[in-house]
């Protein structure tokens, strides 16, 4: 089975998952108590105004009818119109998407570039200070609430030191603090996984073979240890990335970063059904896609996995 076949197969499978999730999302979002019409008009609005808005949005019709209408427009490639903004949902998502992508990738890249060297060092010297630092980072980083870290960084680097902007997304400088906040949360776990993977590789038999050949330490490390440790590192990094693509809600809120996560929260708290559905569908889709891409990456990294995956398919 070829890579292409496999990809097609996985996409088909992912699509089924997506459809299931889609139905669930629709129901969940629509069944949330709350009336967008009243939210639009504000609490002080008059009942007649609210009813007019409700009719305008088609919210006075039965749920199944709304579902059919929504599906029909979806089939035409139309994600609907945001209740809050009155603009196409797709437009709203696309406006936020670059920010989410940028934050997710920068944060993950930062986390990986710190965590992998740390993890490797820790694995090579399991009793050393670095190793212990990794353990400490792992637990501390993962146990401090993100808003704490975020606000702390803002106050140190923006308010006290005036080195970096506190919030917003106007220049490349603006991405430093939010991505550092996320990376701080991610780095420990990633480093711990790296350390475990490298230690496992180090103790594997093919490394003994490599030593028996008389290969130099560096070559053994790069070729026979790191390369073989890639899969667990990839797995964790991609799971993290998938979660980040769904929007780092708290970080985005703290740093006023205009990404998907804050859009989701906004739309949910506004009961902006089409927008919320659109965002969640995007999130879920990104999650599923990331999983597929990861599996394909595995196949590229490890020829064994290639065969196992393809057989499973």
């Amino acid at each position, binding site marked *: 089975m070829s890579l292409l076949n496999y990809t097609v197969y996985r996409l088909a499978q992912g699509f089924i998952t997506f459809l299931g999730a889609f139905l669930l999302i629709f129901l969940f979002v629509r069944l949330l108590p709350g009336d967008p019409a009243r939210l639009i008009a504000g609490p002080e609005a008059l009942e007649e105004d609210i009813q007019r808005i409700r009719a305008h949005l088609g919210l006075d019709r039965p749920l199944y009818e709304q579902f059919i209408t929504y599906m029909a427009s979806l089939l035409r490639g139309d994600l609907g119109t945001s209740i809050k903004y009155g603009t196409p949902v797709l437009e709203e998502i696309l406006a936020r998407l670059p920010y989410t992508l940028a934050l997710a990738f920068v944060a993950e890249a930062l986390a990986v570039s710190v965590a992998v060297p740390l993890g490797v060092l820790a694995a090579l010297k399991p009793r050393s200070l670095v190793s212990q630092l990794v353990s400490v980072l792992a637990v501390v980083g993962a146990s401090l609430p993100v808003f704490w870290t975020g606000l702390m960084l803002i106050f140190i680097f923006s308010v006290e030191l005036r080195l970096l902007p506190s919030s917003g997304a106007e220049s490349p400088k603006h991405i430093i603090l939010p991505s550092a906040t996320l990376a701080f949360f991610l780095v420990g776990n990633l480093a711990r996984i790296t350390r475990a993977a490298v230690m496992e590789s180090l103790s594997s*038999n093919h490394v003994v073979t490599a030593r028996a050949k008389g290969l130099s330490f560096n*070559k053994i490390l790069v070729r026979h240890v790191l390369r073989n440790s890639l899969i667990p590192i990839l797995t964790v990094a991609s799971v993290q990335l998938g979660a980040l693509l769904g929007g780092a809600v708290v970080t985005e809120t703290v740093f006023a970063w205009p990404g998907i996560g804050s859009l989701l929260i906004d739309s949910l708290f506004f009961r902006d059904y089409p927008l919320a559905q659109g965002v969640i569908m995007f999130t879920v889709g990104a999650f599923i896609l990331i999983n597929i891409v990861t599996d394909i990456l595995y196949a590229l990294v*490890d020829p064994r996995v290639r065969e196992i995956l393809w057989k499973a398919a």
Partner: protein
Amino acid sequence: MSELLKVEALKVYYRLPQGVVRAVDEVSFSLERGEVLGIAGESGSGKSTLAMALAGLLRPPAVIESGRIIFDGLDLTKLGEGEWRKLRGRRIAVIFQDPGTYLNPVYTSGFQVAEVYEAHRGGRASRYVELVKDLYRKVKMADPERRVHSYPHQMSGGMKQRVLISMAIAEKPDLIIADEPTSALDVTIQAEIVELLKELKSETGSSIIFITHDLALLLEIADRIMIMYAGKMAELGRSSEIRDNPLHPYTRGLLSVLKPERKQKLASIPGSIPSLIDPPKGCRFHPRCPMAMPECSRVEPRTVKVNGRTVSCLLYEG
């Protein structure tokens, strides 16, 4: 014939929190150039630890406690990792037991063989493709042109073992340590590999230390055989002597299992292999020995020469 290797009173211990494991305890032997020395022993006899010690591949918590390993005049126990690196793969090569796990799954077999050349001749591994193909032909690999590009998981166990053998003989080493090289293989494949090793040995003149639990196999290929039990040498002698006239009760037990009478009760060795953290006092074999004497549980037997043969058993002392 001249002496290539001399092991003197080698002790390899594992220092664990639970206690000290005396995996190899006062083992001495020597090896001539061009000789095949078989080392036979069951699990826990220390034979694999011995192999790793000879190749300088011991890893903590295993350490050489004392003793010397003289290889061509060089004391291997005193070498640093840098000196070892120059030695390994070039003068001392190892063939491992389970070819599946001893090959890196993410590289082609050819690349991994070529790494031996890269390590000792420099340059990039890819330069040595042709040499690897020659090696593959030498080890009678089917379809060498294609196999250099195959990944380990695409090859059968026999093929993988041939890959490991190619690595071992690439630089025509003086000593090949073969640690259970055929145990994971079917008998027909095993027969072929053994045949191949014999051929290669006569071609390169390498000495081989052939380690296995399969005494029957050793009887076919080894010039001399050392029997190990619980970290100790039990007996060392020529293959034919061991086969026809074993001295140590343990060797006798083993042989009787190997040569069963048709539909008769097998001669059995009662009990099981002892713990190496807390081995039996005196002779380590005495709790299972059919010929044990009272003093066997107190006195540790010395290694003695009997008619030019070597054995560690109180039966032959004094």
